[in-house]
């Protein structure tokens, strides 16, 4: 009887439209077909439109003459160079803004973040005001403010603001002395690298000795001494092969030195102060995430305050800080595209702006521009993921 009953409710094979595996395949085929159809429709329309408007396709335009000038170029560039060259020049300009911005914003962000945790009431309140003020105002507005309202109303070169007798700020931009590397400067560079290698081996030796005998060695001071003394000694022996070219007022403008155009100054300034307000909050959260018990345990072990900070708090705080810090770096890089609004010749202005207007090849140019930013994003996040893995807690 019992066996019969069991047989009566024995599972029958479900019909094919109720089988989860077949359903999954069916849905995916449906989605893929939809996407492909939409894609084909768009491609077809685009091709028709381009043909009727007489727009060329393909990447041949990259080797044609660009015919426009670019204000800022770190590598040689002239009007008769190709679009490809213009692309490289503008890409370097974008990377330049991003790199300088990331360095400044990191320093500023850490300073403000630490200031916000300061026991000094006034300092921590000032840091709070900085953060809340800057991060709640659109970045583009801040760029406009620094560019149109501050840098555009600076005095003419003759009435420049001067700092340290070598740095001049006026409507034409920021002028700073330029280092001139003379014959024999390479000895200093070589000496520096020798010192780096020496310091590396010294730290390894010191760590080994500490593990074996427990004796500590002033690693930090010794490496600092090494890194400073070697280049200085080399400089003395090679007769200081470095001089500064100070900008000079000739006629109505400065010549010589390094000139940073106002667009660059405004962009870097706005980007780094804006991003610093986010980084400050990340730093604060990171430091607060290390529990009080860690500090107490460290002092119970007899570590000094500086050692606690360096060996206990910072390594643990960095673990919390690095992932969001990465996305802030990415944000800064992507936001550097706002350069187009104040005509700093970055990749969006030069390539997706001027080059697109001249050639009309919207699809190729937008695709290249997007690919550039995607690549930068992937490279930065890849590097940071690698570093993060390096720093992360090793769990069982």
């Amino acid at each position: 009887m019992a066996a019969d009953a069991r047989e009566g409710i024995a599972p029958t094979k479900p019909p094919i439209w109720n089988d989860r595996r077949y359903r999954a395949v069916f849905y995916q085929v449906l989605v893929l077909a939809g996407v492909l159809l939409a894609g084909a429709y768009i491609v077809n329309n685009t091709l028709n439109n381009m043909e009727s408007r007489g727009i060329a396709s393909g990447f041949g335009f990259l080797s044609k003459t660009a015919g426009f000038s670019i204000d800022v170029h770190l590598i040689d560039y002239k009007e008769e160079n190709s679009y490809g060259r213009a692309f490289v020049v503008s890409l370097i300009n974008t990377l330049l803004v991003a790199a300088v911005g990331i360095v400044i914003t990191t320093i500023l962000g850490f300073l403000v973040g630490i200031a916000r945790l300061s026991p000094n009431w006034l300092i921590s309140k000032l840091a709070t005001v900085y953060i809340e003020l800057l991060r709640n105002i659109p970045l583009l507005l801040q760029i406009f403010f620094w560019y149109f309202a501050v840098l555009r109303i600076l005095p003419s070169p003759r009435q420049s603001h001067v700092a340290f007798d070598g740095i001049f700020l006026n409507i034409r931009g920021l002028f700073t002395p330029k280092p001139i590397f003379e014959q024999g400067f390479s000895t200093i560079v070589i000496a520096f690298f020798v010192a780096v290698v020496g310091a590396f081996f010294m730290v390894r030796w010191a760590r080994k000795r500490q593990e074996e005998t427990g004796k500590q060695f002033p690693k930090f001071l010794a490496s600092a001494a090494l890194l400073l003394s070697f280049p200085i000694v080399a400089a003395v022996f090679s007769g200081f092969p470095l001089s500064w070219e100070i900008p000079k007022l000739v006629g109505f403008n400065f010549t010589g030195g390094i000139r940073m155009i106002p667009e660059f100054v405004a962009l870097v300034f706005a980007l780094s102060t804006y991003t610093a307000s986010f980084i400050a909050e990340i730093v604060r959260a990171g430091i607060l995430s290390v529990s009080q018990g860690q500090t107490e345990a460290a002092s119970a072990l007899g570590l000094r305050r500086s050692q606690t900070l360096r060996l206990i708090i910072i390594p643990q705080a960095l673990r919390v800080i690095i992932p969001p810090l990465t996305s802030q770096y990415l944000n800064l890089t992507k936001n550097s595209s706002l350069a187009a609004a104040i005509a700093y010749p970055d990749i969006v202005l030069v390539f997706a702006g001027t080059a697109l207007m001249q050639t009309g090849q919207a699809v190729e140019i937008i695709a290249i521009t997007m690919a550039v930013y995607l690549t930068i994003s992937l490279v930065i996040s890849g590097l940071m993921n690698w570093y993060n893995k390096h720093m992360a807690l090793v769990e069982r």
Partner: protein
Amino acid sequence: MADASKTYDPGHHPDLKPPSSAVGFVAWIYHNLFSSWLNAIMTVGAVYLLYLFTPPLFQWLFFDADWVGDTREACSREGACWVYIIFWFKQLMYGRYPDAELWRINSAYVLLVVTMIPLFIPSFRWKQWLGIFLLFGYPIIAFYLFVGGSFGLPHVETSLWGGLFLTLVIAIVGIVAALPIGIVLALGRRSDMPIVKALCIGFIELWRGVPLITVLFMASVMFPLFMPEGVNFDKLLRALIAVMLFSAAYMAEVVRGGLQAIPKGQYEGAQALGLPYWKVTGLIVLPQALKLVIPGIDNTFIGLFKDTTLVLIIGLFDFLGMAQLVGTNPDWVGFRIEGYVFVGALFWVFCFSMSRYSQHLEKKLHTGH
């Protein structure tokens, strides 16, 4: 009270007042501003900086500023020229929307505020219905009011829209439309089906990896190419689609965070009850996940709200774009700073109050243990 010479039985000594070095104004100043040499130096430096910058700032903003008049000549004093803002106020708020039709925008604002007020009253009972009206009914009414063209309302071209009004339209439409797309993308990213998953990841990472400007550029130059010949695409609509795609990708990541935070037991429990996928998702997982990510959605909205200013680069005159435009007016040269301060102050008030509200929600919705 407590006399030093008097003796007390053990345990009966009256409580002593705390020493004057531990309480009161002087002690507070000592502990918070001058606890060490370094602190004292920093305090003095900060006070000096404040002394240097704050009085001139207030002088410029208020005491030396010009408030009345309607020409450039009214601004004769040293400080800010608020006459400039008052003169251009209509443009900054509504763009070039025709004067006679401004009541349409205003009544849409009023309707929005009036329907939103009950949502903040805890004891109000028909919140769901109000929510449904806000999501589905209100947009239709607002669209009809703004665009017009039938039932007696004259048509208003979107090229006349501008100012704060346009900023609000782009931000609100962008975020409201982005949420459902973002939810679908987030579910797709966590799906078992490899093709669906790959498509969703590709879509999300593509938009998240590129700046909004390139997306806007793409929308303004490539969308017209995508459509069949003769189809004309409104400029505002192109910008809206770009903003929508962009914020949907960010929204998807926010929602994914919420989905990941739901413990596995919830899925398994729902499946054990025999619920199919869409019921597990719609009745069990999403309500919990969305509640978790409300602050995240709010933050995305703040980010998007600030980013709407970028539409001025493709030639729409939003709030900041309008300030730029009137700043180039030959009759009113030299008052850009006032424009930026005004726009910045309004943006600040919006964003700051939204972020405070999101912090408040975070606390209120925290029902964990």
